[in-house]
């Protein structure tokens, strides 16, 4: 999957003082298939906006976004739904977990419409991220760092050509962040998928990515 931005700028950023950006309002920016990108910026520079626009959640922008040569503003509800089940996965900054469900139920919820991972594979991933003990607990009572790991595993439960990860290690210590990053990278490699990661600052655990300054 190739994602191409042309002169993209979110409307709320229009009135802001902007420095040099490698993303906003560039005539053409391609996210090539299978590559990984790190989008780095301070708060308020539009990291979440960028990922939300690509994922089709926000439509308040100027410019154009293409996924494999089709303008995403022309995609219908049905097409987005298919894209989000089979080609684009998103780890939300706000996680979007259901507090009243257990961690496992949250993961299964996504897996139920994709049937991508087996129960065993889910258990394995949880084991790698060290949250297998919490899987049967209600998500609402887990720490934010634990919830982030649940959201990561959930995002793995679907086929994708690109993974959008929005500050997904922010509440993890270095060790857990590394474990999570490795899991993500492996999954991306296995699926031959690209990755766009947003982060406040370049963390040590993130390697081999092309950096983009917002």
């Amino acid at each position: 999957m190739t994602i191409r931005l042309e002169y993209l700028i979110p409307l709320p950023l229009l009135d802001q003082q902007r420095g040099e950006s490698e993303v906003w309002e560039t005539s053409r920016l391609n996210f090539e298939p299978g590559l990984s990108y790190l989008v780095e910026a301070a708060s308020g520079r539009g990291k979440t906006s960028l990922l939300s626009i690509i994922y089709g959640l926000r439509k308040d922008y100027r410019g154009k976004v293409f996924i494999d040569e089709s303008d995403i503003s022309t995609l219908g509800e049905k097409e987005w739904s298919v894209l989000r089940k089979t080609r684009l996965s998103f780890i939300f900054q706000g996680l979007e977990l259901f507090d009243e469900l257990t961690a496992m139920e949250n993961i299964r919820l996504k897996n139920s419409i994709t049937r991508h991972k087996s129960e065993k594979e889910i258990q394995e991933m949880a084991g790698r991220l060290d949250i297998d003990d919490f899987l049967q607990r209600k998500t609402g009572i887990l720490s934010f760092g634990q919830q982030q790991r649940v959201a990561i595993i959930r995002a793995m439960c679907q086929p994708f050509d690109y993974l959008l990860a929005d500050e997904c290690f922010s509440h993890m210590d270095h060790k857990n962040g590394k474990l999570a990053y490795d899991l993500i990278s492996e999954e991306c490699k296995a699926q031959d998928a690209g990755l766009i990661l947003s982060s406040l600052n370049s963390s040590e655990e993130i390697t081999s990515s092309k950096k983009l300054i917002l």
Partner: protein
Amino acid sequence: MKGLYSILWSDNSRAHLLGAFLGTLAGLVLLLSGIQFYTDIKLVLSDNQDLLDPEYIVVNKKINIGQTLGFSGSGFSPEEITALRQQPFADKLAPFISNAFPIQAFTESDKVPNFSTELFFEAIPDEYIDIKSDEWQWDPEEGIIPIIIPQDFLNLYNFGFAQSQGLPQIPKGVVSVLNFRIRLNGSSGNYQDLPGRIVGFSNRIHSILVPQDFLTWANDTYGYFEKVDPSRVILVSKDPTDPAIIKYIEDNGYDTIREKLKGSRLNIILKFIISFLVLIAGIIILLAFLVFFLSLQLMISRSSQKIKRLHKLGFHYREISRPYIFLLLILMIAVTSIALLITGLFTRQMAAMAEQWNMAISSSLHGIIFGTALALITLISLSNVIAILISTKKLCK
């Protein structure tokens, strides 16, 4: 997909749904029972009237003082007859023909006391007459006039007049062999005497009937009265319980023997009661539908954040609406089954009671009950499903 169902169902309002459920149940039972009994009673009514034997109804105009004083006629104009003929309940129809000249009947025998009386004749086509007799035909060669008189006439004479006057009672058979003569009077004093014979007693038609071809011939030969519209019309209706008959007769100021139309009148009362019942049932069902509709919509709007989140995760709005539709269908199927069960039990109870009054009504539900229940539930379900799809789609924009 247990997760999806538990997420979306957790925002339901049990009290609302229960209320809607009970309301729909009550309305449905009322409606279905109403239709069941209406169907039953209609069957009972038409049984009594004997469906195979259509009713012959003689219709005349009500006599008012204007007619008595000669201001207005009491006959049916050709337009009125045409209008009556076009009514769906009138399968066949014929106006009465009257004599247009004076008639007298008298005896010439020494065996019976002499008598002489002015008389009238009427005629209708043979197919409307309940007496089938070989003698019922006019043969100009033979010249005997066959006559049918009402059974009531003979009864009046035998049980009223004869007894009080000390005269002999006459059995039917003897009346038939009585010889008397009929005098047909022309306008210029010319006349013809012909023998008359009573060939039958009608229970259906209260008139003195002669064959139509005789009266036509006699009117052509002797008739000189000014032509008047027929004052009576006989019509045949396959379904005498049809309320339209009595309504039409009343609306047009006509009159008939009410007894024959009691089925029709009963039917009107019944229809009124049942309509009232159906109206109330309809209102209840409408309200119940509204509560259903509102409960589901409330559930959806309470879950709007969750729905948006599910949409973000890649759920299509159709997938999201499934738990609501499933819930709706479960409730609908349950409410229909329970309503049919209650109506069925109720019907059995009523049939047992009716049996004590010697009335045979069906102890099982009519096909129409299932049809109605199905149609209604489909309608409620379908409109709700559409509403669910619309509102989830809206949230997934």
